[in-house]
């Protein structure tokens, strides 16, 4: 059974969302999904960039003005 981890990074500037995402996904099992909530546009760029480079499945959703959810599936 895969689980979903939500990481609240609202109000946190770069590079904290990226470092937190790296640490969070380390502890997760293959198949788990990490949802990173961010409101700094730079995190909306560098977090997906890092995750795609790792070979993970990434989707970015705009949930509100200036607020995004980065959905990362740990595929390997």
């Amino acid at each position, binding site marked *: 059974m895969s689980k979903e981890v939500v990481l609240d990074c*609202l*109000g*946190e500037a770069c*590079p*904290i969302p990226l*470092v*937190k995402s790296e*640490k969070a996904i380390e502890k997760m099992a293959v198949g788990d999904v990490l949802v990173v909530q961010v*409101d*700094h*546009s730079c995190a909306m*760029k560098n977090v997906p960039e890092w995750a795609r480079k790792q070979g993970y499945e990434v989707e970015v959703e705009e949930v*509100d*003005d*200036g*607020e995004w959810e980065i959905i990362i599936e740990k595929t390997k």
Partner: protein
Amino acid sequence: MKAFFEKIKENEFYKLWFKDALPYVTGAVLLSVFQIVTFATTGNPWGVSGVFAEWGAWIFELFGGSVDKWYYFSSPGAQATLNAGILNHAPTWRNLGIIAGALFAAMMASGFKIKKIKSYKQVVAAVLGGLLMGYGARIAFGCNIGALYSGIASLSLSGWVFAAFMFVGAIIGSKLLVKYFM
């Protein structure tokens, strides 16, 4: 407003010009072009943080103070700038333009949001960091724009020295960030 953005959301030119971030190379080229424009029109290379010192001097004068005897403002050039007033100060208008432009860009991308302060640590770090950056930029005669960017653009060695030590500072800063904010 919401309906307006709903309507143009799918428009490819809206996405290209307002919604999606420009590639880094495009941004770099635009910055280069506009710093040449600012040099050509004002006669001085682009700077941002020196303006804050002048704003401080004008505010101080507003309350009856005088900076005539201060070493930082003692040159005839600095005195002439202060005497000409804020309305005739091109760098002030440029800084206001940067703020207005950034606000406009964020709003057009429907990315404007008033962010909440997450912890008192953020306040302490922001105040301390701001004071250090402001003080450092003044005693170094420039920030990462005036000393680094415009320095290198003027083929000055000092810009490269600034870059090397800014890199060292960034490494130390990242370590502190991970230590106190993780």
